[in-house]
């Protein structure tokens, strides 16, 4: 770990933030066209965040503020572990379990801060968010274990590289098709997009965890949301679509996947939280297990491929 690593990491976090926030802006436009509106300009998302950061705000005690910092700090650290092509801010740290558990620090921080506000809506939202996590993580993690077993590595960057070395047909979405579909379904839950967005339902529970925030805390949470989206979409790009040898390739894949998730969200209704759990524990979990058994017992798609 040299000073250069830390500098690279900082640049990378800034890059991730600007990339995802721009894409969010463009997607707001796409969403508007889907709903026959004109939509805001593509940089509106930046304006929203900087405006929130500069406004006055209230605090409900030290944990209300500390939780926000812990959340954003944890998520920033997680971003530094994400590999793009051969680039890694800190070499040797792109282990899938580290990424998925460090992501939880951010969630815990935010949950803690929200519950610290003393508002019951926030607690209800947090309860739903955690339940949602328990739902989508099961099928996703089964697919991840299958991949680790298949490729004998738990490094996200290496899994992406193995796919790239074979070519387009080496992508896991083709080699492990069931797993790939499960991954995309789980992405919808990870991002908290419809139909799995009951924990931030604005009209029902007043935006859930976000209800008490304003000013700089809200601005920080916007940043948190953008960075979290970056991590989650990046995981899918790296695990199922071969990552990207160049930044452009990565960007294109990333943009398509995120926009696809957004379009699905745009035309979906909302699940109740228990419906989300039963949904994930039926077809996706079964598909993930079937994919796992195929790989473990027959090797189709891994040892036997083309």
């Amino acid at each position, binding site marked *: *770990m040299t000073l250069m690593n*830390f500098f690279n*990491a*900082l640049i990378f976090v800034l890059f991730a933030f600007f990339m995802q926030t721009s894409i969010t802006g463009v997607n707001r436009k796409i969403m508007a066209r889907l709903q026959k509106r004109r939509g805001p300009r593509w940089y509106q998302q930046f304006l929203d965040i900087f405006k929130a950061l500069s406004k*006055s*705000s*209230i*605090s*409900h*005690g030290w*944990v209300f*503020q500390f939780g926000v*910092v*812990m959340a*954003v*700090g*944890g998520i*920033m*650290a997680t971003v*530094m*572990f994400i590999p793009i092509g051969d680039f890694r801010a*800190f070499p*040797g*740290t792109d*282990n899938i*379990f*580290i990424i998925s*558990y460090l992501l*939880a*620090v951010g969630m*815990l921080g935010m949950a*803690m801060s929200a*519950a*610290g*506000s*003393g*508002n019951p*809506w926030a607690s209800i939202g947090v309860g739903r968010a*955690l*339940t949602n996590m*328990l739902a989508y*993580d*099961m099928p996703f*993690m*089964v697919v*991840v*274990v*299958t991949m*680790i*077993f298949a490729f004998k590595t*738990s*490094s996200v960057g290496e899994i992406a590289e193995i796919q790239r070395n074979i070519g387009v047909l080496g992508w896991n979405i083709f080699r492990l098709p069931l797993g790939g579909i499960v991954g995309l379904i789980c992405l919808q839950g990870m991002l908290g997009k419809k139909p799995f967005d009951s924990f931030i339902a604005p009209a029902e529970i007043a935006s859930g965890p976000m*209800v008490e925030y304003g000013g*700089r*805390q809200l601005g*920080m949470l916007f940043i948190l949301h953008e960075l979290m989206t970056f991590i989650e979409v990046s995981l899918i790009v790296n695990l199922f679509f071969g990552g990207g040898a160049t930044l452009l390739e990565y960007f294109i894949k990333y943009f398509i996947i995120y926009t696809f998730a957004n379009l699905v969200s745009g035309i979906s209704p909302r699940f109740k939280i*228990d419906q989300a759990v039963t949904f994930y524990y039926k077809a996706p979990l079964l598909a993930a*297990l079937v994919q796992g*058994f195929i790989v*473990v017992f027959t090797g189709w798609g891994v040892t036997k491929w083309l």
Partner: protein
Amino acid sequence: MNLLSIITILIVGGLLTYVVSRMNKIVGAYMTIIISLATLAMVLFIKSQVGSTYSILYFSFKLTEVGWYFSFVLALTYAMSAFYNVYFTDKLLYPHTYSMLYLLSLGGSIGLFFARDFITFFVFWELVVWSSAFIIPLGKSRKASYIYYVISTMGSLATLYAILLIYKLTGSLVIREAFVLLDVSLGESILIFGLFILSGLTKIGIFPFHVWLPLAHGSAPHTFSPILSGGLVKLGAYVAYISVVIFPAYGAFSSTFMVLGIPLPIYLLMVLGAISIVIGTLMAIRQDDAKKLLAYSSVANGGYILIGILMKDQIAFAGGLLHLFAHAIASATAFLTIAAVAYRTGTTKMSELGGMIHRMPITYTVYLISIISMAGIPPMAGFVSKWLILQGLANQGLLFISLAAFFGSIGSFLYVFRPLSAVFLGQLAPKHENLKEAPPLMLIPMILLTCITLFVGIFPNTVLESITHIQREAGINMLELQQNAIVTLNGYLNAYHVFVVFAYGFVLALILYLLMPNSRRVGLMDTYTSAEFIYTPELLHYAHDFYAPFERLYGKHPSTLKLYERLSLKVQELGTFVDYAFMSHRPSLTVFWIMLFMSLIAMGGVVQ
């Protein structure tokens, strides 16, 4: 200074404490602190004597690496929890008995970890079972103690039977010799393995023997719950270790059906461990009592430890042993914080508490760090151990077990968050307005344990080094350790780097946050309430049925405890029938039996 002096000091010290406590119970409580701290120091001291043997009277001991590791974990939890004894002497019915049994159970556990022969092992095992069985009813309920005792006895008797069987087959009672001498058929080896490990399963609370944990942990004295969860449950892990490593289970079962390289009997036990993880998690999510919630989490974590040890490989085995340490520390800390809250407020029910952070901030911070470790989030000790177990499982392709492990892992976010939110965060009830922070003597162990959790999370190799020694002793491939890093077949973890990066991210976020305009402090009741006017903090505190929509999905599940109750009812009915039919003084029945026997004899005569 050797092993014998530790055990002697504990047993004699225990008896002496009883006498002193009768005169002054506070002095007796301080004696438990001093003696258990001295034990911890001596256990650290004898590390250099590994390999030597001792014998006294009919008992014989051998200082092994694995025994040392287990003793260290237990001595640490006992020494830390002892600080609480001082504050709870008034709340116990028999404080002098408590202080004595406290030390005796520690002496029993240390004796059993170093036992060289089965008789020593069994005697000390029973010492632990009996002393803890008498401590538990000093708390809230006697029923808990009955159930604990019955389930423990089931295990103990099975193990005793296995020991007798081994003696009959080999003529040796020395643990490490007898198992090697065993040369029996597959059926017999499965029988011995199953019987021997049963006491371990009952102790660690594996399904279907988990029913005693929530009852005993929930109603034991507040100072003893940390010991039960952090220490005594781990005795079961030691039995599992003996049954898998010293008893050559993998070799003996090599002719059975193999599930991905694991013999079927061992795989089935792993499935039991996986079921425990799932059941422990689901039940922990729906508890209202914080101590019961933590007890069910011990059931779930016991599953991880069992699975890790049963794997007996390079990675998951080390993970299981590290998890034993990490969970013992984290769980003991969590129980201690709840005990501190209970000491100040008099309740452990989450729905009656709330907003404790505004009165007990240090206790809150300690609880936060302990649950981060328990949930397996970096940079705490629990993360490293879960990482190792998951890597080991993924390496073997054990999908169902991994699924349970993930369920327990993500599910633990749900249940550890509940006390955090319902006890420490949320609205502060007016009746708790004048509470104070926990007394200083309680803060010492809490802060020490927190530092240990954090330290092991950043430098896991300090503990993993001892574990590699155990692996060498057990003849397993040793885990590959580099400076600050762990290298496995399919992964690489440098916990120190993870911590540094996390700290870096935190500092960046903090700088960004501090650059922005300051916030105005408002009261807790000053929140958005959808235009309702609410002036009662208790009504605005969200603690009941936290995960109601999720709990509804499995609300009507069959209960193991009810099954046992139904079974005991059937036994009672049988007893009543026998009593009615043979023992009653009804003349009509006597006449009936005489007639029946007479006619039977007569018929027999006719047939002849």
